[in-house]
């Protein structure tokens, strides 16, 4: 399949559009204690994406491990321009959706979130691939292979 034909339909959880690289993880992720908000690098030593930068990338992980302090770190990253540009989950918990809603309300930054994607993403995507994401329609398209 050529990249242009690979397309996934999910549920749009937070509006916005994204075009760029993705980082794929197979483990649940918590932004609180999980990401350095000054750089956008994953710092959780127990995590498979540890050491990777998710700054302005589409971060694909199964679901969030959300401390209620999550938006603290997340919005600090938004303010520094180091937050992920989009989020794709198997299931997006309210905590992660709240982060995107707050980013939009207080910093006018739209971070699309898509979840419940039909099909196994980890079978078809890998870190470094380029994708287009629409947080309203829930459509994810692969536009380039990394």
């Amino acid at each position, binding site marked *: 399949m050529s990249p242009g034909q690979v397309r996934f339909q999910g549920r749009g959880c937070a509006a916005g559009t994204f075009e760029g690289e993705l980082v794929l993880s197979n483990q649940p992720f918590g932004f*609180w204690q999980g990401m350095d908000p000054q750089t956008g690098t994953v710092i959780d030593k127990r995590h498979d994406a540890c050491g990777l930068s998710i700054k302005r990338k589409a971060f694909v992980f199964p679901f969030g491990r959300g401390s*209620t302090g999550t*938006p603290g770190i997340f919005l*600090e990253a938004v303010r520094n321009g180091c937050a992920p540009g989009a989020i794709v989950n198997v299931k997006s918990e*309210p*905590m992660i*959706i709240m982060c995107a*809603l707050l980013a939009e309300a*207080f910093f006018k930054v739209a971070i699309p979130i898509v979840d419940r994607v039909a099909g196994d993403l980890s079978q078809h995507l890998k870190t470094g691939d380029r994708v287009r994401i629409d947080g309203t329609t829930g459509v994810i398209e692969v536009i380039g292979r990394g």
Partner: protein
Amino acid sequence: MQLTNEEQRILDGGGGEPQRLALQVLVKLGEACGAERMVEIASAHLVASSYQIAGEAGIAIYTQLVEQGARVMVRTTSDPGSIDFARWREFKTPEEYAARQVKIAELLDRMGVIPTWTCTPYTTFNVPHFGEHLGWSESSAVVFANSVIGARTNRLAAYVDLCAALTGRVPCFGLHLDEGRRGDVLFELEAELSADFAEHYFPALGYLVGQVVKDRIPVILGIRRATLDQLKAFGAASAASGSVALYHMVGITPEARTVEEAFGGRIPTERTPVGRREIDAVMEQMGASEGPVDVVGIGCPHASIDQMGRYAALLEGKRVHPNTRLWICTNVVVEAMARKMGYVETIERAGATLMVGTCHNDCPLEAWGFRRLATDSGKFAYYTPTTVGTECVFASTEACIRAAITGRVERR
């Protein structure tokens, strides 16, 4: 979502910009989570009161809201800050850092927040009653309010809690609805464990349960009696290792007089037996090393007056080891009462220090170079390796205080 005339008025800007922005966030959250309407709340509790959580982004948000004239519409209390306002120099908090926390305090003050600086607002001026709807964050307070009191709140995120406070409303989904409060997984204590359930098993069992259920609702069968502090310890651990926001303890918590009631008439999909072996295994995971310990953390969640009395009794006539710090975390209300009752004098005479309005996990402690921390808290045990950056040992309250006196932690 079905909005009332008042809610529509707020969304149209009739209540001012802070309310409009806050309600917009809440309505979008409700739409994403399948809420059909908003529900009015009796109180809010804010987790982004600490500089560690709020950071400069938080200060920017609060400053903007204050400039736009934001005021909380319901009783609203604050979670711990990142400094002990009276003793931050003693805890080696950098001055610039303390100044940023003081800035947050001023901003919250201007919005009308009650400065309780505690994760146990229910020991101060924010005491919900059964069935009341709330807009709380702080995972340990949420799980206490839902489970022990039977009030109703989802686990709100930092700033969303403030949106709730500014509008007096939250979207009605999840734990606000009867069907969202039914148990999912049954944990059954084996007879031997049930008959001899030591106090420090409460946080250990909470830690185990949280790991298994993640964000589902556990039902515990076999606890014969429990104090409020033991329920607090259990819930805090389960909310840290998992994201438990509500548990039922059959015969103990108000929505679980029977197993049937706890499950809302449904048949449990999972039954998990728990015995001594499982408890011992989880305590191993929470940190079981022995040897010198340089800091002991008790009072997580913040100590109650009963616990302060117990610590004082255990420290009476004793002396904390010169190489070890014993820091006891509590809030300013409990501190005042403990001082009146002579507990603070006994605790301080023994060389222990109160850490008021904050805790080891909320304060910057890099300057201390700690290597090993002992705690009786499942929540501390979960977070300490990342927040304080030390090795952690989990032990009973008595063993923790003994460790502070001898300078070494021995688990038996």
